[in-house]
């Protein structure tokens, strides 16, 4: 299983209640078969933007593919990097355009830390992401946060190419 497939699998789990998204995730998985590259920074980076006409504007897959549902962090850091600031700005703009979703920010850590600390670090990353979205006008009270620590990696090799993908905060949209 390639790393990109694992990312798609992660999406499937999150959106499993939405058949449209499952179908999309399967497409994503198929599209990425055989890819040996590191997991891209967002579904948008998969080069699917051009083909994303299939994603209905305002849908969760539109958010994932065209906006980018996740940001990444440096090792043991909760700072919102410049690239992440751009992603969150796009997220905030989109979320204001489609304000009816419930929002959960999931904070994650890589495997190169101890379990308890990583739970707390993931919580910090989720809180930092929520606060940044809040500074862009998304009410903090409308954003739920949860930390999965190092328990839910999306990339599973034992080197930095994977760890850097696992240090992330993912903005997950719930039902309208």
């Amino acid at each position, binding site marked *: *299983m390639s790393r990109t497939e*694992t990312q798609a*699998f*992660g999406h499937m*789990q999150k959106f499993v209640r939405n058949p449209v998204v499952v179908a999309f995730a399967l497409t994503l998985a198929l599209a990425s078969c055989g890819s040996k590259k590191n997991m891209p920074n967002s579904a948008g980076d998969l080069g699917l933007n051009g083909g994303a006409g299939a994603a209905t504007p305002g849908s969760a897959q539109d958010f994932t593919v065209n906006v980018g549902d996740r940001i990444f962090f440096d090792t*043991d850091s*909760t700072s919102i990097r410049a690239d992440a600031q751009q992603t969150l700005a796009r997220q905030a703009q989109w979320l204001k355009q489609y304000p009816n979703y419930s929002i959960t920010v999931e904070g994650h850590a890589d*495997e*190169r*830390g*101890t*379990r*308890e*600390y990583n*739970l*707390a*670090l993931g*919580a*910090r990353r*989720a*809180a*930092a992401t929520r606060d940044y979205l809040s500074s862009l006008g998304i009410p903090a009270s409308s954003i739920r946060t*949860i*930390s*999965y620590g190092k*328990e*839910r*990696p*999306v*990339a*599973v090799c*034992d080197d930095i190419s994977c760890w850097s993908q696992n240090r992330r905060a993912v903005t997950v949209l719930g039902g309208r």
Partner: protein
Amino acid sequence: MMLRRSFLRAPIAMAGAAGLAGIMSARDAEARVEININKGNVEPMPIAITDFISGDALGPQITDVIAADLKRSGLFAPVAKTAFIEKVSNPDQTPRFEDWKVINAQALVTGRLVKEGGRLRADFRLWDTFSGQQMTGQQFYTQPQNWRRVAHIIADAIYKQITGEDGYFDTRVVFVSESGPKNARKRQLAIMDQDGFNLRLLTNSNDIVLTPRFSPNQQEITYMSFEGGQPRVYLLQLETGRREVVGNFPGMTFSPRFSPDGQRVIMSLQQDGNSNIYTMDLRSRTTTRLTSTAAIDTSPCYSPDGRRVVFESDRGGRQQLYVMNSDGSGQNRISFGDGSYSTPVWSPRGDLIAFTKQSGGRFSIGVMKPDGSGERILTSGFHNEGPTWAPNGRVVMFFRDNAGSGGSQLYSIDLTGYNELRIPTPTFASDPAWSPLLE
């Protein structure tokens, strides 16, 4: 579990034992057959463990469990049965010590199993072959299905008699059993004997479960679960399987442990990116906040006397170990080496704190004194984490993930840094917690 122990005070054929038979005669013998387990890489003591007389397969089975326990301690070298000269048919009869000395067995174990009604009686005697004396003799009654426990108890008695320290074989380990791919792991709480036998799964759901720890009386486990999408600390009663949430906190609670008296759970509460340490009294349900910083304060663990707490905090920039009084006063950093320190666990003897250390891209298990002095690394590698102490404070268990192995497994290592062993588990495993000696 019904287990009764009594000492065999009058060996039938202890000719010349001057009336001080059984346990009383041990004092003279102790001076000759002993292992100083503080010395580090000790030469294992050759010991002959004869098949318990039983008339069925159980005798040799019990013998094999005793021998395996003692061998894995690294302190004993069981002599191969094929080398035995004397065939023991009456375990109460004084052995022919010359036959055992000539194959270099310094200690000899004889025993018998008797079915009495529905119960199993196990007698054993430990002999010093060079002084020609019985060091101890004991008798146990139990249910036949508990025969492995009887073997562990006998191994503990032998270990204690010869090392002067309490054993740790009649103990269990609770841990997280991990199966499935790394990016979609199924985690279940599991419990097993310290040698990996009698494994039983305690949970079966797709919720993430982490960091199980025993209550002092071993009747309960406290752990963290993501049940219902809310990561919180739980209690699980082992006998009934009953579960309950610990407290009603507004954020994630994690990293729980019992106080030594079993009356409180100490844990971290996460709020707005900060994590602080709280206790909850299990009777009154009152909660007490012990730390109050904008940092990550977690992994709290009481000293065995309950008066102090060691924990990790990144209040100074990186994860370091701190000790405070159990009321939260007097918080002092104790770790000052290179790298970061986490998951501190106070030894049941009180003399040392075990920890995980990250330095130079490696994860190590080490120990230091409660004042932070005398740091020693026991093992180091790609990823070693989460130490837990054997109840005698002589052995540390932890989990290890070798790069490329796809998951972690359980290992133990002596306080001396020698005798590293893998604990066999059928799946990947993490977060071990060692029980106290069973009652």
